[in-house]
């Protein structure tokens, strides 16, 4: 393996440009390895994020040849057709610098969607008995492994077209909480996701589902939320 990769990296902030670097190609190499090589051996001013390097934290998500992915889990051999790579920051988020984005809005929308657990018991109450095989718990478990990497948010066209849209990750977390028998915040939650920017903004493009590195299915969770909110609306429990 003597070849070199031609790697274009986004440099600058919102209005920046792609700059190209030559990086030695190795037998097994991830996109994160490539970015790290550039920062260590070519240009130390390159800014990017990573933490675990092994696909459990979600920090290294970037746009690789047009798709948002975890760079530590993306093998160069799989994506670098003709030895070319184009790496940019995640879409739909403001760029701080180079490959690092400002994720505050992503997390603010999480809060707006009421994606936080609302307890109903205190330490003086008996521990809640949750059977793992109830339909509700199975639904929650199927959606619970989100680590807030932002890939779905970056992939989503509804996020791109509708600045109010809460996004697939926030709504998926809402779905897990709605199915959590211990939680007491459902009416406020349903109300929060039933307005402009709520779950009904989803058009089922399914980019989120296709690209989620945790193999979660926000499209399905959001479809279920659409049913729940519709029922709640027809029952008069919420107002749009």
């Amino acid at each position, binding site marked *: 393996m003597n070849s070199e990769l031609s790697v274009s990296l986004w440099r600058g902030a919102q209005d920046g440009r792609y700059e190209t670097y030559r990086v030695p190609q190795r037998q097994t190499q991830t996109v994160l390895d490539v970015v790290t090589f550039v920062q260590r051996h070519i240009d130390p001013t390159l800014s990017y994020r990573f933490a675990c390097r092994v696909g459990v934290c979600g920090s290294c998500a970037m746009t690789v040849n047009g798709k948002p992915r975890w760079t530590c889990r993306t093998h160069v051999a799989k994506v670098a057709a003709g030895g070319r790579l184009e790496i940019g920051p995640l879409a739909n988020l403001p760029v701080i610098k180079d490959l690092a984005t400002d994720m505050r809005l992503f997390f603010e929308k999480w809060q707006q969607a009421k994606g936080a657990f609302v307890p109903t018991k205190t330490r003086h109450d008996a521990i809640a008995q949750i059977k793992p095989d109830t339909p509700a718990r199975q639904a929650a478990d199927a959606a619970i492994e989100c680590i807030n990497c932002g890939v779905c948010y970056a*992939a989503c066209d509804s996020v791109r077209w509708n600045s109010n849209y809460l996004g697939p990750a926030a709504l998926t977390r809402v779905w897990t909480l709605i199915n959590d028998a211990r939680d007491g915040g459902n009416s406020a939650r349903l109300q929060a996701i039933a307005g402009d920017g709520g779950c009904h903004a989803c058009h089922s*493009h*399914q*980019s989120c589902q296709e690209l989620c590195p945790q193999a979660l299915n926000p*499209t399905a969770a959001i479809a279920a939320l659409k*049913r729940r909110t519709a029922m709640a609306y027809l029952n008069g429990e919420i107002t749009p």
Partner: protein
Amino acid sequence: MIGRELKHRGSALWLAAILHRISGLALAIFLPFHFLVLGLAINGEGRLENFLCWTDQPLVKVAEIGLVFLFTTHLLGGLRILVIENFAWREGQKQLATLAAALSAIVAFAFLVRVF
């Protein structure tokens, strides 16, 4: 925004959604004209008949085939949404979406055969 084309947009389901939207828009533009034409009958079939003679031209027939395609596409795309939103999740949606597009094309082709 950086504005790069995002590659996952080529996926069958994304195309299904876009086709659904575009066909809806096209039908929405077409409808008022359709209603105006039918409204010609308000004074007897004469004016409507004259208009329908005009529509016998090949170019108009081609446009009608396009309309049938759009109509069928929009129906099938809408059914896709209704199924996702009201029934249990199913695998194989990409294949179904491709099949639906093929079905629209077949229906439009059948119409072509009828009118030419």
